[in-house]
């Protein structure tokens, strides 16, 4: 996906104040951004908030997009920044983390599974009436979310950009502002952690 043709026209029209062009531009990217947010936060409510913040950031910075980079890379750079902001806001106090009996104070990670389980529990009644395929999809997604929850935010972003956004390590390096070799090593380490987590999940 590059900022050429239709997308370039939509960006130009949105910058001129066209609400219709803006909506089309959002609709082209909202599914990717929402599912990214869902994998990162683990629950629909937070995912929706994060998606909204990402598009607000896109709206406020659209005039800065020069077209010399892929639009998706530029957008996911905003998404990464907003995710870091959200994680910072959701970090619990040390007292809360002690009361919860966790050594890990990374609220975005540790609260992730609880929120996920609560979200799945709330959807049980609806699931019973949905097609079987949909239930399998939700189970797969829930499993993936449990695996991703084992990773710190930076590694989760790496997996997100490599696996789900199919970016090259050079693009990932530009988005995360790290060297490409560092991105490669971190991705491999993240994959190793996910393997262990998946094996533990299968044993349960």
């Amino acid at each position, binding site marked *: 996906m590059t900022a050429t043709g239709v997308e370039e026209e939509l960006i130009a029209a949105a910058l*001129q*104040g066209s609400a219709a062009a803006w*909506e089309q531009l959002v609709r082209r990217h909202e*599914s990717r951004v929402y599912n990214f947010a869902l*994998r990162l936060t683990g629950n629909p409510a937070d995912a929706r908030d994060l998606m*909204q913040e990402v598009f*607000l950031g896109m709206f406020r910075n659209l005039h800065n997009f020069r077209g010399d980079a892929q639009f998706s890379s530029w957008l996911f750079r905003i998404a990464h920044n907003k995710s870091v902001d959200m994680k910072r806001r959701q970090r619990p106090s040390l007292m809360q983390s002690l009361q919860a009996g966790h050594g890990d104070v990374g609220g975005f990670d540790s609260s992730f599974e609880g929120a996920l389980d609560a979200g799945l529990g709330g959807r049980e009644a609806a699931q019973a009436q949905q097609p079987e395929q949909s239930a399998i999809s939700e189970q797969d997604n829930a499993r993936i979310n449990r*695996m991703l929850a084992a990773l710190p935010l930076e590694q989760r972003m790496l997996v997100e950009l490599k*696996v789900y956004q199919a970016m090259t390590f050079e693009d990932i390096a530009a988005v995360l502002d790290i060297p490409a070799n560092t991105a490669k090593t971190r991705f491999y380490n993240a994959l190793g952690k996910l*393997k262990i987590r998946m094996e533990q999940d299968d044993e349960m």
Partner: protein
Amino acid sequence: MKCEQASAMFEDLFAETLGSAARIELASHLHSCDSCRQQLLGLETTLSALHQWRDQAVPEWDRSLGGEIGRNAQSKNSKQNSSWLGLDIWRWSPLAMAAVLVLAVLFNVQVSVGRDGVDISLGSSTEISRLLARQREEQREETLAMLTAAMEQMSASNRDNLQQVVQYFEQQRERDMRMLEAGYQQLLDSDYQTIRSVQQLVSYVQNEQQ
């Protein structure tokens, strides 16, 4: 090849940067090492599991971002409507105003409103110089007068000599009297001239009647 070397090659393998020679070497090791084979299989299975994600539908949400998009569009449209002869007035008006002010200062433009309408004239720099010089002279005189008065006051208080103060007041009174006398004399002269003028007028009328 040792298992540590094979593990290091996995990183390049997943990054798709492993060369063909290294691939052959790694394949040879995997053929004989069950542990590394299991490790690679586990990593591949993990990657496959991640790809099982099924995109969820985006719930309905406010794409206008709380009306911010609509407000922005209105603002942009109102600016476009203000364009005059293809020029964006909002963008150029501050620059035009600045240019007019610079010209007015440089050429000393004088604008006055009279019976015949608005009159715009370009003044000369000598006129400004003359006005400035007069203003400067007036300010200098005022400053001198103030300084003199202040010094006199300080001097009087420091001397603490009542006699000198009385003497000063007497001198002032004499000066006032002289000025009063001169004024009175001037008034008398003026009255005398007036009387003479009246006499001349009377004699002229009389001559005319005769």
